[in-house]
């Protein structure tokens, strides 16, 4: 089996196959074209553009187009830009397997096909953790959905599944859920957060007040009520008191997970901390012909940041095709110290050579709000340290140059100074 089936129009081979036509995938494709490299973008959705297609609110596009756009307009501009650059886009094309080679097995409306590529860029993004994944009790009526599903219904289909839902979580996306509700004339009855602080930046709490959505902190959703349709949720507060909130829907927001089933099945090494692939400072996965970019690398960043990672990956792929990247056998691992409040460090591997244009910083997230001194240490030697004040959703950067300059083969541990 080579090439596309009748009607799919897929080529049998290409230089770079990009999986996922969101900001990262499209950003990479346009840059590859500019570098004179042929890129094919595959996306399983009927339309390219990724998640911003159904984020019908501001702000998107500052980094890419230097203006403030709504998600769907931003997605459209990304797609137009890719088309203008001559990128070949294949929607409704699901990659069902990634084989050595690399070779992609895909499913299209016309059946199964295969695509041979010199390099593959994975840009499959993230999704929210489902209610089942959170082990929430109660019944399983219809009307328990994610923000992503709500946005598709509201912004892509002009439909709404409920009128008075409870929103679970207080990440940035949770407030996007409020905006989506407002757009459709849905009035959330409560926003419920298990922690004692709003996870998103402070201004988001103001949005909840502005939109008259009551915030319930230190409150955990125990059960979903209603057999066929949602009738409410039972919550438990900090004092252990249980009560019910009447509602006709539940939106489980956030707790993003990189979309990795394809990678896992292909045997690529994954990082349990980030949930994404383990990569080096060039964005290379454990198979050096496979790169990753965008939110697949880690939960969760803005569209603009993901787009920039796509552009970055294009540069690294160009170097890789030209034979200008060091051997894949990067023998330095970077990881959080056991038991640390550091949730993950990306990249997870380092090659001890200086390559122009490689990642300048590692991206880090913490598990809880904290202040302290962040330390990267190897064999008792501090390679870098710096003061931090962070919370779970906030981006933390750790410069890689001091690590590459001083590290030896082995493991670099990252943690807070009092964790060593």
């Amino acid at each position, binding site marked *: 089996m080579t090439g596309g*089936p*009748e*009607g799919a129009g897929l080529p049998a081979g290409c230089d770079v196959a990009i999986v996922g036509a969101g900001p990262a995938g499209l950003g990479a494709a346009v840059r590859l074209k500019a570098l004179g490299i042929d890129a094919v973008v595959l996306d*399983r*959705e*009927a339309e390219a553009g990724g998640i911003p297609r*159904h984020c019908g609110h501001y702000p998107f596009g500052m980094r890419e187009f230097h203006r403030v756009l709504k998600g769907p307009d931003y997605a459209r501009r990304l797609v137009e830009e890719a088309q203008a650059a001559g990128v070949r886009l294949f929607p*409704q094309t*699901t990659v*069902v397997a990634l084989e050595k080679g690399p070779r992609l097995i895909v*499913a*299209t*409306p*016309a*059946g*199964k096909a295969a695509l041979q590529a010199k390099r593959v860029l994975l840009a499959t993004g993230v*999704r*929210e*953790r*489902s*209610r*089942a*994944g959170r*082990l*929430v*009790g*109660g*019944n*399983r009526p*219809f009307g328990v*959905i*994610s923000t*992503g*599903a709500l*946005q*598709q*219904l509201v912004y*892509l*289909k*002009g*439909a*709404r*599944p409920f009128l008075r839902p409870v929103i679970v979580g207080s990440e940035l996306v949770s407030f996007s859920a409020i905006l989506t509700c407002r757009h*459709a*004339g849905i009035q959330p009855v409560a926003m419920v957060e298990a922690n004692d602080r709003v996870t998103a930046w402070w201004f988001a709490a103001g949005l909840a007040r502005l939109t008259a959505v009551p915030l319930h902190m230190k409150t955990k959703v*125990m*059960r979903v009520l209603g*057999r*066929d*349709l949602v009738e409410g949720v039972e919550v438990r507060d900090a004092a252990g008191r249980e009560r019910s909130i009447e509602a006709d829907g539940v939106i489980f927001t956030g707790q993003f*997970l990189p979309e990795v*089933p394809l990678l*896992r*099945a292909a045997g690529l090494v994954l990082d*349990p901390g980030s949930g994404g692939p383990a990569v080096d400072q060039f964005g290379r996965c454990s198979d050096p012909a496979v790169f990753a970019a965008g939110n697949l690398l880690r939960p969760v960043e803005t569209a603009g940041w993901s787009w920039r990672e796509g552009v970055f990956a294009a540069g690294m792929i160009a170097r890789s095709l030209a034979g200008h990247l060091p051997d894949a056998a990067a023998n330095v691992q970077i990881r959080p110290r056991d038991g640390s409040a550091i949730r993950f460090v990306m990249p997870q591997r380092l090659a001890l050579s200086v390559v122009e244009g490689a990642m300048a910083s590692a991206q880090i997230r913490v598990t809880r709000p904290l202040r302290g001194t962040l330390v990267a240490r190897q064999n008792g030697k501090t390679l870098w340290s710096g003061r931090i004040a962070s919370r779970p959703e906030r981006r933390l950067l750790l410069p890689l140059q001091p690590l590459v300059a001083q590290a030896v083969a082995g493991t670099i541990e990252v943690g807070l100074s009092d964790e060593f």
Partner: protein
Amino acid sequence: MASGEPSGTAESYDVAVIGAGVVGCAIARRFALEGARVIVIEKAADILDGASKGNSGILHTGFDAPVGSLEQRCIAEGYREYLEIRERLDLPILKTGALVLAWSDEQAARLPALIDKAHANGVDDVEPLSAAEILAREPGLSDRVRGGFHVPREYVMDPWTAPYSYLLQAIENGASFLRRAEVLDGAFDGEAWTLETSRGPVKTGTVINAAGLYGDRVDQSLLKTTSYVIRPRKGQFVVFDKAASELLSAILLPVPTEATKGIVICKTSYGNVLVGPTAEEQDSRDDASVDGDTLAALRAHGIEMLPGLAAFDVTATYAGLRPATADKDYQINDDGARRYISVGGIRSTGLSAALGIAMHVFGLYTAFGLRHRPPSDLRWPRVSPISESQERAWSQPGNDGIVCHCELVTRREIEAALCGPLAAASLAALKRRTRVTMGRCQGFYCLGELAEITAGRFDTPLATAYDRRGYDRRT
């Protein structure tokens, strides 16, 4: 006439089967194949809405059933017939075998008696295994295992398409299916029954009560007496991500107790890994809710047995209700004078035993002195395959594109499931036909598309169109 949906009916039937769970579907199939005019009466909007909604999907040999019991005979016969017909109906099977595992010395001491019991039940290929032999077969298991035995012919089956195709075959061979019809009352006039249903009267020669969790109540309203009382037993399950299926090959069974077969760890026909069920007595026949702490305990239990599970996410959780009774055995009682057969207390082995139960019930019916002429040209419909081991629609041309990305469900499959005599009328029904939204993302990626495709097809729509002023636009 192979009709889909009669509404109250002037036509009279030979047999009315009350309840479209797996047992009712199998009975309908048996009687249709034997030439009886059959009607299946179901109070819910879909088949498999009660006890058959949540089980472990295992095709049991009956090795641990009570020796000499009706349950054991029905399982053995059901098992045999499933293997005989499954290829003609395109029903899948995973030939995994099972390991019964002892985790303590006390459990290990009970293994020889269980092996003897298996032999007495005609399952003569079980063989004892040492802990080392078990670990060699299942390297992912915790090394705390003490010993066990192998049951080579315990298999994994598909709990959705099997009953679905039993009923579809019944319908294609002349049976009728009346759904959203609750049996309220009935009278036997010495020759025939008139059942009063919420959708009008149904005339039938014989009544077969396969109402599962409501079996005793149906007996009570039709016979004014019942020989058993249903005591619902809830079983909760957690379902791990498909990638976890690399951790095991056989069905992992605990040493059973008097009350329960215990918590199983196995692959499902769809490629996930299942841990469950619990066994919780309750009064409600309707409350299949799950409990967060119990789910967490099940997850922990799975990880204790199979440590590698810790690295995998939970994809789904669910609970099933088993129609248990005070008695251990099935409660299948016939009343020839009143042309009535009650099929009750099919507690946890119904999926394996259904075809055998159907054969047994047909035997009781023939003992009433009733005969029919089987159709000369039997039809063998094939339902759309949804198991991992089968060739799925997405790999074929003309599938109209994938809608549910996690389970690779195509638009063509969804549209097919929305049509025909067993058309899905709810998301739950569509899930059982196609597995749509049953994957890891639980609808994150496809709910919008699905709402559009199913518009106007469900009793309760997934979403309602609105305009900017907030008024619903009815389509």
